[in-house]
């Protein structure tokens, strides 16, 4: 539980590694698809064989520039690849090709909406390109580790934030914002389970008003939004504990253990690594021209922020609704299709997309892209609410049938005879019958027991199989009950 500690200020910076959704790797023509059998997607360049050389995938540059533009960053006209030298079995060359002094993108910002609805601007220090390492497998190999280099060479965009976040919740909000953005830009699929969106957190505390930052710990192995929040909170409490008992924080890397909900020092990383960065002599400076940037700018989609603002302005949606509907580009597109086809009542569309539709998708574990109900079919249903053919309540029943059986709204309504009763004569007759059948309650109601109104509504609905138009029913019932 996050405490509102009045003494200690929390300072958090996040490093995100987003795997770029290119078809081939950053420095070789190997495929990047996830899940292939070990080492079947690692060619000689990926394996760091003697004599091989890297050749740079232009699409990775394009994607990085897209990110830079979407975060109002400066795109470097000239950036350099540098070698980060260290030994690890999943790093075949014994160095990682990355960027050091001259990254491709620097100095941007991202507006983040917090839990309480307020907004905060988080600085983005830089975003640079680098290659991913392979994977080590430890299970089933006693005393040994198995190295799979399929992932080695996949392009990464490392996004480094300024240490601007002041709580775990802010950190998660920023993370979610970046997550949504990279998917909007179609530069990363954001799949945290598959490791295509990874996050490390730099966490420190200091007394409020202190000029300098405290010593920070780097948290790794944070692979869900929930774990990130818990890990940061644990770490903050740990650091405050130490400082309050007179100790000091060791600058180190700590692994988050989700089972025990604690962070632990990483033994192997205790010695500071001297990475001996130097410009990679096998690669030349990357020049990004103004023309290139404009070409990329032309491919930018409407960004989440812009879309949210437009939904609020043009559709009259609340901030909350706009937020939910813009979480993914596909969901927003679906919603907009419905609005366009319906031609009116965007709020109705919003409610149904956020409510019934999302509920059904979640229940069946589906993405919006795999929805059993197209925007057209949902619109068909909503149109029948708008034109009073059915009530909102009945519509839910129709939705279920449409979802499970694949039929159109009209077909279901006809089949099940669900048309709303809007004929006042019929409703009056039903009311009369109910009143006649319940003389006792009638007398009590007329005697002042107002809450029996609901009883009568229920009885009439039962008698009409729920098809009485609710508004008309209320109107006519009130008149008749009064006598």
């Amino acid at each position, binding site marked *: 539980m996050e405490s509102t500690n009045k003494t200690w200020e929390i300072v958090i910076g996040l490093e995100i590694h987003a795997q770029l959704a290119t078809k081939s790797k950053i420095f070789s023509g190997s495929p990047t698809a996830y899940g292939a059998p070990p080492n079947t997607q690692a060619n000689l360049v990926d394996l760091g064989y003697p004599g091989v050389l890297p*050749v740079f995938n232009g699409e990775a540059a394009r994607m990085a520039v897209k990110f830079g533009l979407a975060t109002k960053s400066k795109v470097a006209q000239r950036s350099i690849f540098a070698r980060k030298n260290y030994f690890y079995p999943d790093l075949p060359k014994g160095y990682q090709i990355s960027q050091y002094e001259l990254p491709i993108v620097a100095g941007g910002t991202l507006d983040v909406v917090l839990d309480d609805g307020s907004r905060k601007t988080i600085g983005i220090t830089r975003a640079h390109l680098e290659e991913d390492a392979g994977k080590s497998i430890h299970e089933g190999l006693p005393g040994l580790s198995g190295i799979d280099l399929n992932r080695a060479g996949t392009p990464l965009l490392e996004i480094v934030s300024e240490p601007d976040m002041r709580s775990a919740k802010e950190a998660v909000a920023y993370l979610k914002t970046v997550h949504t953005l990279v998917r909007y830009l179609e530069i990363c699929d954001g799949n945290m389970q598959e490791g295509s969106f990874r996050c490390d957190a730099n966490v420190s505390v200091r007394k409020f008003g202190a000029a300098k930052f405290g010593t920070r710990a780097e948290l790794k192995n944070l692979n869900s939004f929930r774990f990130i929040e818990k890990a940061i909170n644990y770490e903050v409490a740990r650091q405050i504990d130490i400082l309050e008992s007179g100790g000091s924080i060791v600058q180190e890397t700590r692994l988050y253990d989700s089972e025990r909900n604690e962070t632990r020092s990483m033994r192997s990383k205790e010695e500071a690594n001297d990475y001996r960065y130097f410009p990679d002599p096998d690669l030349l400076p990357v020049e990004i021209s103004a023309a290139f940037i404009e070409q990329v700018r032309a491919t930018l989609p409407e960004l989440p922020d812009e879309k949210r603002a437009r939904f609020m302005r043009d559709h009259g949606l609340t901030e909350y609704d706009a937020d939910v509907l813009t979480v993914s580009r596909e969901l927003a597109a679906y919603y907009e299709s419905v609005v366009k086809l319906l031609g009116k009542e965007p709020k109705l569309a919003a409610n149904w997309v956020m409510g019934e539709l999302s509920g059904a998708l979640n229940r069946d574990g589906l993405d919006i892209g795999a929805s059993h109900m197209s925007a057209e079919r949902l619109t068909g249903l909503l149109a029948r609410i708008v034109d009073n053919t059915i009530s909102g309540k009945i519509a839910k029943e129709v939705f279920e049938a449409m979802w499970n059986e694949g039929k159109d709204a009209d077909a279901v309504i006809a089949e099940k005879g669900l048309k709303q009763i809007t004929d006042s004569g019929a409703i009056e007759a039903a009311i009369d019958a109910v009143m006649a059948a319940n003389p006792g309650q009638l007398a009590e109601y007329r005697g002042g027991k107002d809450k029996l109104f609901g009883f009568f509504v229920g009885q009439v609905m039962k008698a009409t199989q729920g098809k009485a138009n609710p508004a008309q029913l209320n109107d006519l019932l009130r008149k008749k009950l009064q006598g």
Partner: protein
Amino acid sequence: MTVHTLTIAELARKLRSREVSSEELTRACLARIEQHNKPLNAFLTVTADAALAASRVADKRLAAGDAGPLTGVPIGHKDIFCTDGVRTSCGSRILDNFVAPYDATVVARLKNAGTVMIGKLNMDEFAMGSSNETSYYGPVANPWDRTRVPGGSSGGSAAAVAARLLPAATGTDTGGSIRQPAALTGITGFKPTYGRVSRYGMIAFASSLDQAGVLTRSVEDAALLLEAMAGFDPADSTSVDVPVPKYSTLLEQPLKGLKIGLLKEFFDKGLDESNAACVRAALDVCKRLGAELREVSLPNLPLSVPTYYVVAPAECSSNLSRFDGVRFGYRCKDPKDLMDLYKRSRGEGFGAEVKRRIMTGTYVLSAGYYDAYYLKAQKVRALINEDFRRAFGEVDVLMGPTTPTPAFAIGAKMNDPITMYLNDIYTIGANLAGLPAMSVPCGLVEGLPVGLQIIGPHFSEAKIFNVGHLYQRETDWHRRAPAGYA
């Protein structure tokens, strides 16, 4: 017919007129290797069966009239070039068991041009050396005097060509490793402009300095080979997309009016007087052919050796990190943990000079030293480059000695690395600036060859070949063979 004394140009004529077959040439090479290789230790691997098979294919093409200038010509590759299915050791224990799964671009291009690969040639380990004494497989001997070194790192290539075991061999030149052994063994050695020839498949030593080239017995032969090897390669980001001239057709331009710069810094007290005399005689020949000589100065050039010995070790310390006993190459016995695997595989797999350079490189790149050494060296490199650029504003080519002395005795310079490093004093500058350069034989001092170096501006290969070729028409140093190998 004696074929081992013929140049490629001469062999190509005889092959095309069917006076001799590629198979006969190949058998002749194999026989000479059988006879002479042991004391020289030039060849590490002889691929006899594959060579004979390739020679028969070449003969079919020659018979069908479907042949290029290199079809059927035997050639050897420095063991730094990856050759598909053939062991590629780089002169090192750490790759002693390494069978390359692909061909280097240079190998593929020469294969496509019809050459017949005879085998892989000995070299200083990972191209680090100037005497071919650091090879895991033992030193190579100079055919002119087998108690002396042939130079390095392309020592095996040079010895094999000088001993007439085959007409040509590929080599690599990072600080002089083609030119220096060519000079010490009395043959022609050519290093192209950086980026002219692909580095893909050429095991990397110092990436911003390495270039593939050739060792031959004539300038014309070097031109023929470079035509086939050079050109843009999409697999090498540092490969330049500039058309390749037909060098062999550009050899005859008269030298009249050619401005030759004599580097003041080269004719210094380090240069043996007898070497200097041979070089001056060569310059006189050029003068007779119509060239103008003038003195130029490259004041930062004396810093080229220390600059090189920062940049090259830095790059190699990183390039050699991939040799870790994990995916290929030597792995130590019974590693007790990962750290032990790394340290002993590399400690046992690499020789002393390689370890020395890896450690030097690690040191100059390390935190706190990067600015003082690596960054500083790259700045001095820029100064040297600028010196050359200015000089080429005044002259067309630079000429001078290739080495300070003729071949020294095996073992003579192994005690102090610096003494060994100073052998490259005249050659290193061209690597730092990425310039094309060539060494041609220009004399004998007490029976040992001396080389003349020609350096040109970027992409002036044609001019360098032209000058060298006309010089070789006026002289016959390049036709002299060591005793016992004639």
